[in-house]
């Protein structure tokens, strides 16, 4: 190489250091690495709230909804009824308060309803393989939709006269029928062959379905109340929770009483107790083994109802006796006049398993006219006898395959591995659809390993400002009557403001921080700034690998990788 | 060539006097050179300046060691050692003094001409600035240059009332001082 000619006085031409590649100095390199947000990892439906909130924050509402419904086709519904574990997982909880993900989800669902946005799914090919889905509750609907997205023809059966399944027994103050109708009907218009009034074991038969369809997904739910007694004693005139709810929703009546004890800590118990209050019963109690949700609760020892529902029930006057078990029914003849309760708690045993323990000497009496158990239901075995084989639920593996029955899949309530929530049912349906599609294509089943969610420590919270959480408007107690919806959808400004609170955990938020802070101008910005794709390139010709960008990335999206 | 040494005090316009004299010579088409004896003196201290007037260009830049004329702006300087040193034989001394020229000549053993330049300058300029009066007297006594040459040099340097007063002072001195009485000495001492 010839040596450059010396310039008079030693001047240099502009911008010529660019011929010197400082990238050779580097021993570690920054890379963009998408990491799961905790909200994503804990969502039973498999939603990635970070992804759709990013779209929304970037101003693309419809794209946000489409991202959302690419996983969960029922956001208006789950946005209302889901206990939102996403928010418990949200890293923003470590900063000020979690992002109100469920409110954003609901807002997007409602927006789609209002705008009539069609679901992002095409018609299946005429010769596509057909799959039958039995049951049109959240699991069935989700599975049918995702099968369609996978290119299959789908026939959706339900014993009921309309789609919705268990959604239809959620009281209207929480989930109005109009919302179910609006979301479910649009979903059914996507090309699902919907056949109502087809009861398994009566109108349709599993064997025939298995013969007719390439695969069958069972999402039959649970209808039979669990047996309930206290020391073998069952009161006469026993009303069962779910039935009381159904009756109220069908004809608007409830059992006559002055005081009622509802037994159970799930949503049915809470819904029922609030219905009883709305029906005019002055004195309504909930007795539950579990504790009220609180910061110190053990995960397995908390009432399963949605915390905000519990809170609202208390506001409405429902008295909750948490960590109480029923020792004895107080009877006058066969008529219940009260219960004897005892303090109890779940404590870890030697193996670490939580185990219920009652404490001697803590017994108290509660005088009530009625005791209504709301402790859950089991599967109706009609038409499934051959595969249940006496079991109370369908045994499935992690791909929702019914064990021992090729081509048969199941999800939602009534299965092993059931999450017991609408959202987990939606997730079951999607996972089953993916497994069915893979199986029918003759491919391997989808992987189930989930990468670890990014922790709060991996973010750089300095770049965020504390912002108040946008709460949905809740009706004052005196206005909470009958079926009027208790909580209102966020208005657009609130929803946008709430989306802005997202810390974009593990994903680029195009904030320009790396571009701004690189001392070597080795971060290049692309002209088109996407909302979800990082619009930056590392210029490894010059990057010296100092790691400043990684340390200062607010979202933990940049990591340093050792280079050899 | 004639060489002149001018003695004064800082602030009395000693260098200006030398410059005026050389300027007058140059304006007359002669060669003139003037320069101070360089010192770090402050106002009031005795200072010295030199003038050379010649018919052709001089290249030298040495100090004047043997002047033909001394111009002394302050009588008191006569008591400063060395003021009269180096005067050429037959050289003349013009001094700002109200004393009698003959008495001074007798006292110092040199030929003196005393001009009461302080009182004259007070009268015409409003303050004792003896240099213009002494230059006018020098030119009148020696006739080395016409006094008009001095007037021209003054016009180059001063403006307005100050100039007018100086010009009137030159005229006044020219009438008081005998013209040409030092012309001989100029020729006697010239090179």
């Amino acid at each position: 190489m010839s040596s450059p000619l010396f310039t008079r006085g030693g001047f240099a031409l502009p911008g010529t250091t660019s011929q010197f590649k400082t990238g050779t100095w580097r021993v570690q390199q920054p890379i963009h690495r998408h990491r799961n947000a905790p909200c994503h990892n804990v969502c039973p439906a498999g939603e990635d709230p970070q992804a759709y909130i990013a779209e929304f924050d970037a101003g693309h509402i419809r794209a946000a909804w489409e991202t959302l419904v690419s996983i969960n086709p029922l956001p208006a519904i789950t946005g209302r009824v889901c206990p939102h574990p996403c928010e418990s997982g949200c890293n923003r909880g470590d900063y000020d308060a979690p992002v109100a993900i469920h409110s954003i989800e609901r807002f997007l669902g409602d927006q789609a309803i209002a705008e009539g946005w069609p679901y992002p799914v095409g018609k299946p090919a005429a010769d596509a393989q057909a799959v039958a889905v039995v049951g049109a509750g959240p699991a069935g609907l989700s599975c049918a939709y995702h099968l369609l997205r996978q290119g299959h023809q789908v026939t959706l059966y339900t014993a009921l006269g309309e789609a919705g399944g268990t959604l239809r027994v959620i009281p209207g103050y929480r989930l109005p029928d109009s919302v179910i109708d609006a979301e479910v009907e649009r979903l059914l218009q996507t090309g699902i062959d919907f056949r109502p009034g087809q009861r398994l074991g009566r109108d349709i038969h599993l064997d025939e379905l298995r013969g007719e369809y390439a695969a069958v997904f069972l999402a039959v739910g649970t209808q039979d109340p669990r047996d309930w007694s206290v020391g073998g004693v069952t009161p006469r005139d026993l009303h069962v929770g779910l039935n009381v709810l159904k009756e109220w929703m069908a004809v608007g009546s409830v059992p006559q009483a002055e005081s009622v004890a509802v037994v159970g800590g799930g949503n049915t118990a809470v819904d029922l107790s609030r219905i009883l209050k709305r029906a005019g019963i002055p004195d309504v109690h909930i007795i539950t083994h579990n504790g009220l949700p609180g910061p110190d609760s053990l995960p397995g020892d908390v009432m399963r109802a949605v915390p905000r529902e519990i809170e609202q029930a208390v506001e409405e006057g429902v008295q909750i006796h948490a960590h109480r078990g029923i020792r004895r029914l107080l009877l006058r003849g066969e008529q219940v006049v009260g219960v004897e309760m005892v303090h109890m708690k779940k404590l870890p045993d030697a193996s670490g398993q939580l185990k219920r323990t009652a404490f001697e000497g803590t017994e108290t009496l509660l005088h009530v006219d009625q005791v209504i158990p709301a402790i859950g239901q089991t599967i109706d075995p009609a038409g499934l006898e051959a595969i249940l084989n006496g079991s109370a639920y369908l045994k499935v593996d992690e791909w929702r395959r019914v064990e021992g029955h090729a081509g048969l899949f199941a999800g939602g309530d009534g299965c092993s591995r059931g999450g017991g929530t609408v959202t987990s049912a939606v997730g079951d349906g999607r996972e089953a659809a993916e497994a069915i599609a893979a199986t029918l294509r003759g491919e391997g089943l989808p992987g189930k390993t989930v990468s670890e969610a990014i922790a709060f420590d991996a973010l750089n919270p300095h770049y965020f400002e504390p912002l108040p959480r946008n709460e949905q408007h809740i009706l004052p107690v005196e206005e909470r009557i009958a079926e009027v919806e208790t909580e209102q959808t966020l208005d657009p400004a609130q929803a946008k403001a709430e989306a802005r609170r997202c810390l974009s955990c593990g994903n680029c938020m195009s904030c320009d921080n790396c571009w701004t802070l690189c001392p070597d101008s080795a971060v290049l910005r692309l002209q088109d700034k996407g909302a979800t794709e990082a619009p930056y390139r590392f210029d490894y010709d010059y990057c010296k690998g100092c790691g400043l960008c990684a340390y200062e990335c607010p979202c933990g999206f940049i990591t340093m990788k050792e280079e050899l | 060539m004639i060489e002149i040494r001018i003695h004064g005090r800082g602030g009395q316009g000693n260098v200006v006097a030398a410059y005026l004299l050389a300027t007058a010579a140059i304006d007359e088409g002669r060669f003139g050179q003037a320069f101070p004896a360089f010192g770090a003196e402050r106002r009031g201290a005795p200072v010295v300046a030199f003038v050379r007037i010649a018919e052709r260009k001089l290249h030298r830049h040495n100090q004047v060691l043997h002047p033909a004329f001394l111009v002394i702006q302050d009588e008191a300087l006569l008591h400063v050692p060395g003021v009269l040193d180096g005067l050429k034989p037959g050289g003349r001394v013009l001094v700002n003094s109200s004393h009698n020229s003959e008495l001074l000549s007798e006292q110092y053993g040199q030929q003196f001409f005393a001009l009461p330049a302080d009182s004259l300058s007070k009268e015409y300029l409003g303050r004792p600035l003896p240099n213009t009066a002494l230059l006018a007297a020098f030119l009148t006594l020696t006739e080395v240059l016409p006094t008009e040459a001095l007037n021209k040099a003054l016009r180059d340097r001063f403006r307005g009332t100050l100039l007018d007063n100086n010009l009137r002072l030159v005229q006044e001195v020219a009438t008081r001082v005998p013209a040409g009485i030092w012309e001989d000495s100029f020729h006697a001492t010239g090179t």
Partner: protein
Amino acid sequence: MTDTDDKALLKQLRVEQPRFQGIVSGHRACLGCGEALATRLVVEACGPDIMIANATGCLEIFTTPWPESAWRVPWLHSLFENTGAIAAGMEAALKAQGKSTKVLAFAGDGGTFDIGFQALSGMLERGHDVLYVCFDNEAYMNTGIQRSGSTPHAAMTTTSPPGKVRMGKRHLKKDIISIVAAHHIPYAATASVAYPSDIRQKVRRAMAIEGPTFLVIHSPCPLGWGHDGSLSIEVARLAVTSGLMPLIELERGELTGAMPIRTPHPVSDYLKLQKRFAHLFADDPKAREELVHLQALADYNIEKFALHSLGDDPQDTDGADTVTRGGMRYA
């Protein structure tokens, strides 16, 4: 995409960056250099119609290894101690030529607080239309980390080493901003590389003023301060949030702005990240005393400039660097 296509894309991208690139890649600054970053931010905010006089120092060395130069604006390095005068000469020349190009002077703390102080003072006094930017990394880094007038109290340098009887630098950091502001210039400010938007705002404010303006930017030196290059911003930020490096603005000598501190950090949070203060964490009463002393200096600043944020101010130490999705972090 093929390798060639990718190279072509990169090449195009480098040219098309949506900001003014007055200083380009390939300069020889250390990893995580605060001064390189601060310089880029300043030049970016100025735009192309400028001319720079640069003092001797790291910046000069790492940007102009002949025959290369990182600069894309006219730039001249003369000596260590005359940057104010060089800039003054440039400004006088441009004025004589009737040009409006703005002259900038760049110098480190040594070239500003110490050896170049006289030229700076003269430039300020004569009212030259020059923006003088001091990149303050608190020691002579180019020559091997020797103590300067800007080195903070108790810091270790090669000429203020701690030992049995000494705890690093015995003297205080020179209050340059007050001295500069005492020249009654229209605008003088302190800034920190941890707050790029603040730097941009201050540069633009200064650029809009005809007359001498002064900006000192606290710029960590990973080598001289003994911290990892990835921590340069974190360290700079803690200097501000601890109160040791108050970000203030003075107009005609009067305090007109100060970035409030939302949550003052203890100075030890700042000090413990840097090896130059490691001796202060030894089990030694002198070390403990100096730690308390430094905390007292920070508290003094907080009190003197009333730096305590009243509520969450979007311009305070927590608000001023807030990012948003898709947000160009321009002021």
